[in-house]
């Protein structure tokens, strides 16, 4: 059962990494326009204006 002492922290850590990634995506606005992003990736024109 000693293995639990290792496995539980690892599983929690992995879960936290996932949660952190989700928060990051949420903060970066990746859920603001799901339809638009799905369409944008298929466009022919290059869509990466450097910000002026």
């Amino acid at each position, binding site marked *: *059962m000693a293995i*639990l002492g290792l496995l*539980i922290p690892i*599983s*929690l850590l992995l*879960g*936290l990494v*996932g*949660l952190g990634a*989700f*928060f990051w995506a*949420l903060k970066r606005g990746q*859920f*603001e*326009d*799901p*339809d*638009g992003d799905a*369409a*944008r990736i*298929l*466009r022919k*024109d290059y869509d990466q*204006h450097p910000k*002026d």
Partner: protein
Amino acid sequence: MSVALAQPSSRPAACPACMAAPLAEHLADLPETDSTIMLSLPQIHCAGCISGVEAALMQVDGVHSARVNLTLRRVAVEALPAISPEDLTRVLQEAGYEAHELDAALLSTTQADFQGRDLLMRLAVAFFAMMNVMLLSVAVWSGAEGVTRDMLHWISAAIAIPAVIFCGRPFYVSAFWALRGRRLNMDVPITLAIVLALGTSLFETIQSGEHAYFDAAISLCFFLLGGRYLDHRTRAGARSAAQELAALDVPRAWRIRDGIEERVAAADLVAGDLVLVKAGGRIPVDGVVREGQSELDRSLMTGETLPAFAGPDTVVNAGEVNLTGPLVIETQAAGRETALHKIAELVAVAEAGRGNYTSLADQAAKLYAPGVHILAGLSAIGWWLATQDARVSLNIAAAVLIITCPCALGLAVPAVTTAASGRLFRKGMLIKDGTALERLAEIDTVVFDKTGTLTIGAPRPVGLEALSLSAKRVALGLAQGSSHPLAIAMANRLRELDLRLADITELHEVPGFGVEGIWDGQKVRLGRAAWLGATAPDVTASFVQIGDGAAMQISFTDSLRQGAAETVAALKAQGKRVVLISGDTSGAVTRLAREVGIDEVHSEALPAEKADRIAGFAKDGAKVLMVGDGLNDTAALAAAHVSISPASAVDAARSASDIVMMGADLSVILDAVETAGQARKRIRENFTIATVYNVIAVPFAVIGLATPLVAALAMSSSSITVSLNALRLR
């Protein structure tokens, strides 16, 4: 981050105007030099549209960036202060995209986005905690004992308790407000179950007990938050498209003071101000014409299709559209005093009357919440009497609450509404109100407005063949010189006949009367009957005259909206009563009613009469669906059981109605009615499924056989079944 949810509920304000009014005031204080412009683009739908819109906007000098949001159907433009929203809408219109200014809604939509994000964040935390606690619980269920079980329980508690406190906040707040208002809603048993489950589980853990319900408490939170999020998303999507309606008209007016014209907010006008209204402009105040002659389109206010003459001393109302010449109007009433605003008050009254609809979910909650509490209380008392053990009886009470907790009930309605709204959205309908579909499923009477609803609202000339060739050529030449809607319609029709243009000189518009010019040495005129000395017929008509000859009549009819007759026929075939109520003259209304096949007709109805008639139907027990588009319909739309307006309707009408149809075809109403019926059936099925689960599981809980494993299984399987059943609607 949680500030936004401190409000009593996440529902939108009862009427869009309530949300827009404070915003509009706030907007008036802002300098007009904001560099972010928001435009609504109701018709964009694909990658090509994104590129098209962005490219068109980027070509405008002074525009720094343009970013389309396809989900919300709008574009955010960063531009120099000198660029006005009107410039940009014109650019987009030329590029073929319908666009509307959207600035006042900006604040409130970011608020809605913020709420969605907040819910999503809580959902994510709940998911994380649920998965981990479940994992630990599996170890307990598969037979961990003694110290190991205690350790697993303690870790579960450490994850679940903070997570539940954080994630369940929307429920606690809502339950708190319900209790304060001495009501019971779905959130009260939810909160009680969560608190009791955590409390007893913590106590059990401290006592090294066998059963802890941490997993149940957190998965309860997760499933219910899922339902809330679906609900929010459905409404936010429709609202962002429909909410612009309240804010679309950013009313400004030209005020003349000491001979100088200045652009002011319509709200700043007071009685006595002189206001200039250009041809094509909407009149912002009630008043009297002082200078100029023109014709007025009153159709939005009264439903009349015939443009009315306006000259000095004509009384005009806010909301009418000035057609041909500039008018100077002396303000008699502005803002809240106008007839237009009185209509808004009628709407508010009508809405208040409708507010007592109880949604299916609330009906269920009303039966369910007391039942659950009584059941839990009784089993606690029973066990206490039997065993004299408070710990056991509290455990049983917690188990009963968790087993019966309305996971499936919380998902039953939002899952179905989301699926149904999605399906109707693809057909071009926006469902603005969460209960609109439930109400639509109940209707037995359909009331249509005429102008702009059953008809397109655009006139079409008929009987042109009867005119002589020269008359047609002259009519075309004259019609091209005017921006009057009848002239434009006539010119469009005549151009199709491939005529040689008559060479007309000295062409000029006589505002309020028509156009005249010289052709072949003779004076030629196109305009109103009275101007040309003809008697006015009871249909919409223009007259053309060459020299001193007799005036020749050109009649107009309004073209039927696509699918109008089929829709009426199908509704009648379903046994629904179909009524036409219009403000137009009885001749025009009966003619159209015959064309589409409606037998019950009321004409020349004032706005208040329309609403009264609908209230009368409702009093007789009818559930009325109102379909209308004009300002004169808004009170009726708000008074009806459920209402639909076309996208071409005035903003007030669209915000008063529950459903907006984006396309021109009326037959989507049939789809909506059908989908609504199916949705109601699915909601009922979902309630049945949830109840069956409860009926099976509750006896186990009451006799003390409900282990956390049974609770977890019952909860997740019923939630999944309900969601899958809802998905069948798509």
